[in-house]
């Protein structure tokens, strides 16, 4: 390939190839169906003729003189004894036969109309710009119009309709048309009418759709393979071509010998069959050609089409080296920027390193250390291959390592195993957004799984129930730099989607930080030092908040947390645990408001509203104002601090967290009974016809709305009752209120009552005739008959309740299944439409044709990643800063 001269392509024409061109392209004519002679040498003018390329080492191509693997091969040709329809064009042939006159070949349109269409097509051909109307579309209209005419406008003869028996038989009033007749009719169509039919007479003619010469693909496109037994096995295409050649030969002999018409016709049809299946072995209406073993042959169309075809499998679906895949497991002691890589994988994945005087000694040490290790327990990266300056690859083995160790010198390239600090790409499918593939720094670890920090689970949408992820080792210095600067996890803490953090503390980190900092939680000197040592805090301990406590001075959790805060931070906001139904004063009293003064947390707990993704104010402030390094550091340290705090306090939840006292349960039952009564009252009023509809609604709709309202309220009420008894001494409540996981609704459904079930946003109303289940009376509109679940998850559901609950649950499942596929395809189309747009240096958004799509990026030139939830400037905090918060 090296000798090829790059040329600029100015124009490509796609057209049918005629017999002349096929012959011109051909390196040899193929006449014998045999492939190799007894010595295993290709037979001249056979299917493996050396003119068509070589597939055996040592031989040379007779056309270009090149050796195997250098020669892409050359086409040959088979002269067909009789013409044969190209099955791929049979529909076009039918259209043209029906649109033209059989004997004169004229298009059956008046000259005016022909000129009209020809002019349109010509104009389209001359214009460079792409348009929405295609030449094919205009031709289609012309053909349709010509087909409609009852008689020929040129000679007045009535028209006879030609029908197509799929795939390749044409009939005229029941009489079969031979391919020869079809061809002669197509030959008659004058050039002047061709443009109208969608043919450009300068390059192609309709009779090319009936084959007289068959092009034979180059040998390298259909290589034969030698089995272990020494037997040759030919490619499916070669098999098919053998069939074509055999029948072609017999047809020619019979025809020349003047055999009976019937025999010639049978052979002709057989030839047609073989050529049709040679193109497409899944043509409707004819049996598939099979191998001797019964396996269907894979012919040209099958090579290209479908998921296993050339396009989807080989062109769109490229596979890569230097990648690894395994199960992921969590490790909170890794930085979000890191990924734990098992030694086993690290010894397979390599980075090419060019030797210079600075790394020579280091690389020599690596080689030596790998073959004579000083500490077998320790992971030392090794070297699999070295590439000499002359391009030869040498594998390092027990035998040759010493020799290669000594001759290693600048200019060599070695393929070094992965080691700590290498940058790799990490990815989890489905890759729906750019955060699905981020760059991590390698940490070599024992074990067999990839380890990641839990904070990067949300962007990958990963969990640890068996998820696997892929890792790719970037190979060039440039790629490494790009990955480090653009793709590292810390650069993706803030999302371009809405201008906030998407990576932040989750689950246990939030619970842990809450437990550390809530209320009057305090720690003695041992605990304080233990917790702070987790974040490798250096410096003096702060002055204890409780110096006179029993058993020595104690530090508050807030003091410990403040160690992570920048000194100039001033914030005041409501915590996640804030009671929305109480006054601000009450909340301040209860320590539900966070206040940070000069980097010291003076009150309030650290919870979801401080450190979580999306909502965390402190995280937002640090990531926006201090940059990605500081944000990464903060998240890493919060993770460690939270784990430290949890080790001191502990946190557990169980079924008894949903316990509420009996009198609370009684209250809930009471509330439910009165609500059901209320529903009955409404239903009664409706049955008596006394119910008044609300404006814009029917009586039934109004009734449903009222009932839903009553039942919705009682669910809230029972949640409230249960909530009074579920205090902050309950870990389930702590998790829900602090924003770690779960909600108070989840808890009240466990402890109190599950509430109304719905399908399609309405009370459950499907099932039997006028009732949902046979347990109820027909026409019962009461609460229980229409899916109200009084029980709680903990107490268990009655059979009817369980059924209703399952109905509601099933709808949810179906919805998500439908939604993901729909929205996935919608997003894909959107991405495909937008993927080539670029923001240029002048802030215009342009496409690949360099035309302007947006005169100013986003109309305000603001990078949403660096904005505060879409706004370029955070006016509120600016005013606070200037006025001092007054």
């Amino acid at each position: 390939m090296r000798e090829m001269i790059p040329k600029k392509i100015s124009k490509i024409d796609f057209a049918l190839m005629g017999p002349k061109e096929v012959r011109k392209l051909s390196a040899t004519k193929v006449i014998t169906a045999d492939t190799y002679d007894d010595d295993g040498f290709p037979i001249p003018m056979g299917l493996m003729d050396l003119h068509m390329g070589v597939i055996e080492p040592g031989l040379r191509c007779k056309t270009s003189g090149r050796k195997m693997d250098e020669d892409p091969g050359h086409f040959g040709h088979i002269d067909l004894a009789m013409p044969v329809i190209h099955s791929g064009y049979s529909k076009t042939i039918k259209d043209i036969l029906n649109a033209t006159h059989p004997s004169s070949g004229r298009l059956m349109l008046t000259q005016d109309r022909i000129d009209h269409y020809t002019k349109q097509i010509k104009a389209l051909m001359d214009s460079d710009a792409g348009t929405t109307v295609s030449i094919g579309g205009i031709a289609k209209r012309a053909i349709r119009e010509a087909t409609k005419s009852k008689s020929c406008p040129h000679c007045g003869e009535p028209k006879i309709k030609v029908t197509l028996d799929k795939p390749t038989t044409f009939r005229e009033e029941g009489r079969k048309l031979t391919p020869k007749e079809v061809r002669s009719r197509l030959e008659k169509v004058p050039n002047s009418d061709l443009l109208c039919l969608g043919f450009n007479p300068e390059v192609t003619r309709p009779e090319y759709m009936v084959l007289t010469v068959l092009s034979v693909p180059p040998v390298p496109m259909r290589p034969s393979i030698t089995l272990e037994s020494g037997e040759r096995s030919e490619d499916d295409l070669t098999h098919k071509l053998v069939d074509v050649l055999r029948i072609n030969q017999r047809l020619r002999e019979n025809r020349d010998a003047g055999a009976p018409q019937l025999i010639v016709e049978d052979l002709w049809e057989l030839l047609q069959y073989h050529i049709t299946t040679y193109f497409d072995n899944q043509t409707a209406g004819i049996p598939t050609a099979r191998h001797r073993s019964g396996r269907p042959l894979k012919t040209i169309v099958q090579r290209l089409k479908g998921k296993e075809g050339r396009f989807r499998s080989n062109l769109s679906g490229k596979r890569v080296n230097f990648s690894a895949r395994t199960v992921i497991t969590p490790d909170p002691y890794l930085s979000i920027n890191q990924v734990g890589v098992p030694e086993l994988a690290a010894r397979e994945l390599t980075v090419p390193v060019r030797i210079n005087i600075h790394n020579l000694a280091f690389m020599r040490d690596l080689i030596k250390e790998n073959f004579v290790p000083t500490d077998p327990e320790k992971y030392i990266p090794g070297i699999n291959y070295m590439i000499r300056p002359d391009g030869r690859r040498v594998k390092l083995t027990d035998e040759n390592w010493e020799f290669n160790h000594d001759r290693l010198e600048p200019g060599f390239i070695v393929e070094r195993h992965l080691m700590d600090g290498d940058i790799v790409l990490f990815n989890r499918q489905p890759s729906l957004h750019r955060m699905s593939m981020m760059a991590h720094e390698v940490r070599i670890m024992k074990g067999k799984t990839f380890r990641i920090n839990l904070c990067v689970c949300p962007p990958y949408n990963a969990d640890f129930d068996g998820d696997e992820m892929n890792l790719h080792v970037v190979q060039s210095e440039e790629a490494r730099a790009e990955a480090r600067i653009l793709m590292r996890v810390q650069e993706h803490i803030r999302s371009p989607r809405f201008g906030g953090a998407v990576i932040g503390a989750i689950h246990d980190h939030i619970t842990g930080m809450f437990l550390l900092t809530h209320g009057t939680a305090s720690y003695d000197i041992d605990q304080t030092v233990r917790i702070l040592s987790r974040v490798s805090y250096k410096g003096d301990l702060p002055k204890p908040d409780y110096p006179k406590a029993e058993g020595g001075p104690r530090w508050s959790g807030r003091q410990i947390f403040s160690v992570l805060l920048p000194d100039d931070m001033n914030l005041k906001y409501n915590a996640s645990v804030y009671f929305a139904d109480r006054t601000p004063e009450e909340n301040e009293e209860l320590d539900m408001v966070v206040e940070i003064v000069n980097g010291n947390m003076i009150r309030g707990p650290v919870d979801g509203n401080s450190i979580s993704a999306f909502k965390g104010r402190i995280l937002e402030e640090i990531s926006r104002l201090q940059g990605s390094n500081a944000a990464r550091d903060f998240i890493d340290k919060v993770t460690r601090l939270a784990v430290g705090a949890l080790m001191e306090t502990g946190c557990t939840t169980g079924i008894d967290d949903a316990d509420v006292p009996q009198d609370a349960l009684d209250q809930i039952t009471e509330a439910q009974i009165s609500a059901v009564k209320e529903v009955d009252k409404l239903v009664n009023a409706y049955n008596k016809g006394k119910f008044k509809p609300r404006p814009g609604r029917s009586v039934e709709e109004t009734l449903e709305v009222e009932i839903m309202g009553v039942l919705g309220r009682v669910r809230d009420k029972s949640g409230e009752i249960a909530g009074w008894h579920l205090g902050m001494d309950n870990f389930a409540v702590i998790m829900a209120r602090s924003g770690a996981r779960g909600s108070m609704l989840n808890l009240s459904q466990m402890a109190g009552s599950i509430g109304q079930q719905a399908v399609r946003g309405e009370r459950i109303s499907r099932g039997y005739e006028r009732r949902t289940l046979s347990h109820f009376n027909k026409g019962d509109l009461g609460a229980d008959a229409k899916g109200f679940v009084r029980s709680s998850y903990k107490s268990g559901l009655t059979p009817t309740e369980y059924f209703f609950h399952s109905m509601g649950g099933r709808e949810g499942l179906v919805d998500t299944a439908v939604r993901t596929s729909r929205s996935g395809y919608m997003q894909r189309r959107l991405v495909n439409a937008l993927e080539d747009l670029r923001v240029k240096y002048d802030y215009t958004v342009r496409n690949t044709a360099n035309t302007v799509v947006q005169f100013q990026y986003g109309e305000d030139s603001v990078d949403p990643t660096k904005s505060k939830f879409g706004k370029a400037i955070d006016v509120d905090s600016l005013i606070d800063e200037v006025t001092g918060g007054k």
Partner: protein
Amino acid sequence: MIFGKDAKMNDNILWLNKLVPKHILLKESEIDEKLNPLNITRDQLPKILLKDPALKALDEEAKPNDVVEVHRFSESAGSNLAYRLVVEE
């Protein structure tokens, strides 16, 4: 047919819809003046069809190769200027 005091450009009812941005047909002399500072040539502009209702509602009659200035409301920046090249098809 004038609706409200804002209906200045034309008494065409089209402009009264708040979702229809204001279109101004640029004079030949203005075009370079507006496009040169942006470093954008005429063929790089987004297109607008001659048969676009907004062009038909203008006082002046637009012809192919003219440029219109579009004043749009912008969610992010308040207001936004765009230029579009008139094309026949």
